[in-house]
């Protein structure tokens, strides 16, 4: 940052013109930048650019080298993006919840449409047919045996 005249000021990251090294004792109206030396447990003057890098902050980008990988694990189908199969199948419950909560007025035993209707009609046919068969069988069973 330069002033209108182009002179370098104390805030210039390129460093103060008056001292290339730290000058903590020099207090000439300029605000000195101090940094904490963790080893000596004392404050010491910091160079200009260090003022813009607070010690306490963690770097955004890790400076650790990436761990060496000697072998990538076999990617199973379940790790694929886009909702592939997981352990023994994908969770389809939300889809079913949408189907069964459709406000179409259908009772729960017919909510899925064709397969439900088929099963219901088969069951009803067996019920009505069965009752008729039962009544006939009981009527016949109630007839007296012919005596010889």
């Amino acid at each position: 940052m330069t002033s209108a005249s182009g002179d370098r000021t104390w805030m210039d990251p390129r460093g103060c013109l008056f001292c290339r090294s730290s000058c903590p004792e020099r207090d000439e109206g300029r605000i000195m930048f101090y940094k904490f030396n963790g080893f000596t447990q004392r404050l010491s003057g910091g160079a200009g650019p260090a003022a813009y890098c607070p010690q306490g902050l963690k770097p955004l980008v890790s400076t650790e080298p990436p761990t060496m990988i000697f072998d990538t694990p076999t990617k199973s189908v379940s790790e694929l993006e886009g909702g592939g199969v997981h352990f023994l199948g994908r969770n389809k419950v939300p889809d079913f919840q949408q189907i069964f909560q459709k406000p179409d007025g259908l009772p729960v035993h017919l909510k899925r449409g064709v397969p439900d209707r088929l099963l219901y009609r088969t069951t009803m046919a067996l019920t009505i047919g069965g009752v008729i068969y039962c009544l006939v069988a009981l009527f016949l069973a109630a007839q007296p045996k012919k005596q010889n």
Partner: protein
Amino acid sequence: MAHQAHAYHMVDPSPWPLTGATAALLMTSGLAIWFHFHSLSLLYLGLTLLLLTMIQWWRDIIREGTFQGHHTPPVQKGLRYGMILFITSEVFFFLGFFWAFYHSSLAPTPELGGCWPPTGINPLDPFEVPLLNTAVLLASGVTVTWAHHSLMEGNRKEAIQALTLTIILGFYFTALQAMEYYEAPFTIADGVYGTTFFVATGFHGLHVIIGSTFLTICLLRQIQYHFTSEHHFGFEAAAWYWHFVDVVWLFLYVSIYWWGS
């Protein structure tokens, strides 16, 4: 659109109570027709109708609970009371058969030889297959509890594994018991010993099959993500039923197999 101002479940009209009642009519009449006229058609028709009714009725309950969200806390409480009352009624059912057993075995009549087991009956050794059966059912009680805890902790894979193991143990019990039935030196027609033995253990075996089926349905539902770690009453009901089956076996083992031998 009108919304309900309460947390209870007003069910849609359903045909299944009618078809279920018809199935009961057909099965009872069918049994009578089979006894007197040797025809099994009516009985088979009744059994088919019963199967169709159960599948569709319980399928609808799953739809209402898991997909439509009708099983609020008060509704779930009602379901819990219902299951407990049903299991209690089953306890009384077995109590009757235990009563019959103790009535006959505590005071054996002279016709039996005045002793229990009756003269001529060679009972099964309680420390062979029956003891193995006891171990199998006790182990299945542990695995079903393991499945429940896995479910509550959100551990999908372990819940599936533990539930599968429970079902396998249930089928193992059934297979062992079927083999015992085939190999037994006495039959249901061998006096009151045979009657009490096969009726009590037979109804127990039927309940093991029912319990295994219930657990299998729960396994399929767990695989399809129906259960959450907070809400899985269907599984709890199956686990309660399974523990009930286990306890009945323990009473059967101690009373009929061990004391009665």
